[in-house]
């Protein structure tokens, strides 16, 4: 779980900084990260365009290393690893992005309740978040899967439950900052009804930084998803999935070490790219240079 390390986001200072900051030149890191993410997304959306037949078994060509016919080599059943990586992008990404999205939505509602729900409801919501956060994210996800069973959808739900309390905390702090801000004070003095203040001022100013946090969190979610798959609790075989591929490759490390290399690299690069791109987005949004 990526703990938010930044101080409560201050929209006014950020707006000032944005207006001051000269147009930044593009830096190579975020650009490369974005390019790789585009590639992964393309693979997830149109796997058929980039590779074909992830399930074609060819025992004669089993456990080949990278070569001309199979760029990334083949697995124990002679299936093309490149094709399986490409087709594996969808479930991997689905688990990562889907659970982040759900966790963001749930966490936003949760955090707003925590900030604006008064002493009873708000306090209860945040104590519940504290309890859930006491468990490491992956343990929490394992616990949920143990209860509701394995599978892609359940993995998404499990990771959502694991990530949502973190989002809730960030949203709560941000909502408290916004609620105490002079512009909400001004809106109250103009006589705007509370619902309007919530929808026009509080939610937009809370959600904008949340989007950035979510991007950074996608990486964490992908790792959590891959970990569940690795343990056989995510998408079920024969569907290709990076974490599951890594788990299978473990049995054949002696015969073909590249079998573990490529799914591992896919996970690592995707998570890194998501994190780098997220940080760049965050820096841009907060009006400072990426650290």
């Amino acid at each position, binding site marked *: 779980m990526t703990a938010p390390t930044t101080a409560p986001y201050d929209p006014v200072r950020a*707006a*000032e900084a944005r*207006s001051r900051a000269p147009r930044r030149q593009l830096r190579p890191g975020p650009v490369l990260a974005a390019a790789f993410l585009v590639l992964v997304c393309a693979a997830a959306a149109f796997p058929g365009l980039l590779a074909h037949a992830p399930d074609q078994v060819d025992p004669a060509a089993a456990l080949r290393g990278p070569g001309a016919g199979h760029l990334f080599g083949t697995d124990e059943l002679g299936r093309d690893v490149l094709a399986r990586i490409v087709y594996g992008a969808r479930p991997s990404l689905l688990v990562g992005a889907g659970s982040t999205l759900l966790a963001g939505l749930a966490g936003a509602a949760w955090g707003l309740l925590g900030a604006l729900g008064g002493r009873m409801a708000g306090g209860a919501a945040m104590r519940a978040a504290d309890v859930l956060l006491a468990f490491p994210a992956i343990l929490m996800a394992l616990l949920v899967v143990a209860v509701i069973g394995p599978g892609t959808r359940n993995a998404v739900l499990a990771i959502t439950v694991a990530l949502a309390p973190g989002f809730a905390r960030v949203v709560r702090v941000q909502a408290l900052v916004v609620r105490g801000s*002079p512009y909400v004070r*001004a*809106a*109250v003095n103009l*006589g*705007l009804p509370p619902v309007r203040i919530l929808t026009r001022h509080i939610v937009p*100013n809370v959600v904008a930084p949340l989007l950035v946090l979510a991007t950074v969190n996608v990486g964490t979610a992908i790792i959590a998803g891959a970990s569940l798959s690795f343990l056989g609790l995510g998408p079920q075989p024969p569907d290709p999935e990076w974490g599951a591929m890594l788990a299978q490759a473990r049995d054949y490390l002696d015969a073909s070490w590249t079998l573990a290399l490529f799914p591992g690299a896919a996970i690592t690069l995707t998570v890194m790219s998501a994190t780098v791109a997220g940080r760049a987005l965050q820096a841009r949004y907060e009006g400072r240079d990426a650290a």
Partner: protein
Amino acid sequence: MSGPLAEVAGLSVEFPTRRGVVRAVRDAGFALHAGECLAVVGESGSGKSVTARTLLGLAGPGARVRADTLSFEGRDLRALTPREWRRLRGRRIGYVLQDALTSLDPLRRVGDEVAEPLEVHGLATGDDLDDQVVALLAEAGVPDPETRFLQYPHELSGGLRQRALIASAIAARPSLLIADEPTTALDVTVQAQVLDLLDARRRDGTAVLLISHDLAVVARMADRVTIMYGGLVVEEGPAADLLSSPAHPYAADLLAAVPDLDGPVREPRAVRPAPASPSGCPYASRCGLADDRCRGELPPPVPYGPGRTVRCFHPGEDAPRPTARPAVPDVAPDVVPVRASTVASERAVVSVRGIAKRFRSPGGSWRRAVDGVSFELRAGEALGLVGESGSGKSTTARIVLAEIAPDAGEVLLDGEAWSGVRERERRPRRSRIQLVDQDPLSSFDPRFTVERVVGEGLPRGLTGARRRERVAALLGEVGLGPEILDRLPARLSGGQRQRVAIARALAPGPEVIVCDEPVSALDVTVQAQILALLARLRRESGVSLLFISHDVGVVRQVCDRVAVMKDGSLVEIGGVAAVLGAPRAPYTRALLAAVPRLHAGRRAAVPAPAMDLKGPT
């Protein structure tokens, strides 16, 4: 000493940025003798602080400094190595900054902070060091120095922190003390004490370079004055002479913009707002005397009377504006007595009856912020609320705005209950009472354009083009053009932002506007514009103002009546002329005595009011 202690000539400081070179200081120069106080005056961005920091070798990262002469104690500062600079700073030149809370290390005890220059420069060690530090704190007017010695900055009040900072700056007995806005964040009575302290150093032979935007402070402290505008020294001369008869149009406008406690009360006069001219005289775009020559050609500095120079083609000429403040009330066309034109009725719009409010302090004890305050705000009047920080002004404002409920007492709006009713009942009436506060930018949703900010105060039925038209009309009322409708407030200047805030407050057509320190963050010329705007709006729309300020001069200029607060209570209330002219409460008298005045000249040692020396213990 024969020659000047510090001499600067032909100084220019440039900052290369991605958008081109910013020329922060151009061809500046001055000479400063021992025991003399030179004040550098100008608005934000005029280059005054950069000029002073150059003397410390701290012009800033990437700064390109050039000078014909840059000497101190006979040494050429241009040739100093970083190591030599460090030996100079704190040892020969002391530096006092504006904000003592951020300038003091929060994790270090006050005594260690003051001891540092002595240690670094090897001037004292061991027990001797502690004794010296205690003596320094005592000298800086810190009461009970043995206790303060061991405290941390957050345990001290603002005035005490500033004194500790001065103690640290004078620790090594520097021959030059640079004070950059040393009293800007302080209450007037504390300000008076800090200024006395600086003045005492000057009398002991230390040269003081005072950076300030406050001409009244300058009038009190300075022997000589340098006025900067757009990076240029536009006028320079002996303080008394220059301040009584400014030669440069900017100096004259600046002086005319200062709300003073003496002289006739005048309608605040707006100075034309304009960015500095790119070519020629930088003030040409705002100057009433500017002609084609001014716009095309930079005027050279020319002598103007004994010891004075001015950088103007029309020095001392009378523009269509008042220069010096007349000694007797005259009838110049723009001198409109405010109160004659505004007839405040006797009907109370807001009645505050015996309100009290307590807050729990971090220690757990209760602090009375407001205690039994009663007053009436009458229809069409401007009521000033003055007092020092912590006197309960802002808490009173928040109770009047019904942002917080009083513990006791009540507030009536138009004779109907306003405090103590349910928010749901109050909400439809909230449009009647509006707020303009000190920091307009933070009171705008950072995602909103000017149109949306102002439009939010309009009735919700109004939409589309009609709404936009109405917002543009409101902007027109506060002197802004429709071209800023789609801009983000963060991209506006401070004065423009405050105008937008006023336009938003006007949008629902209120009967009362609560102004909480509306001009205290603005440059004095911009401040004059905003005050003029508020005065005009009041005359035209008959809106009542509850005007909260720590600046008695501003209140005098804007208000009909004034209420003085201290420690949560009203000590005096009445007509401005009566209260400020013949104060009855001892506190009001002390407060007024502490206010520096533009035309009082430099005062000899003023007996500092003995009040407010307390700090948390």
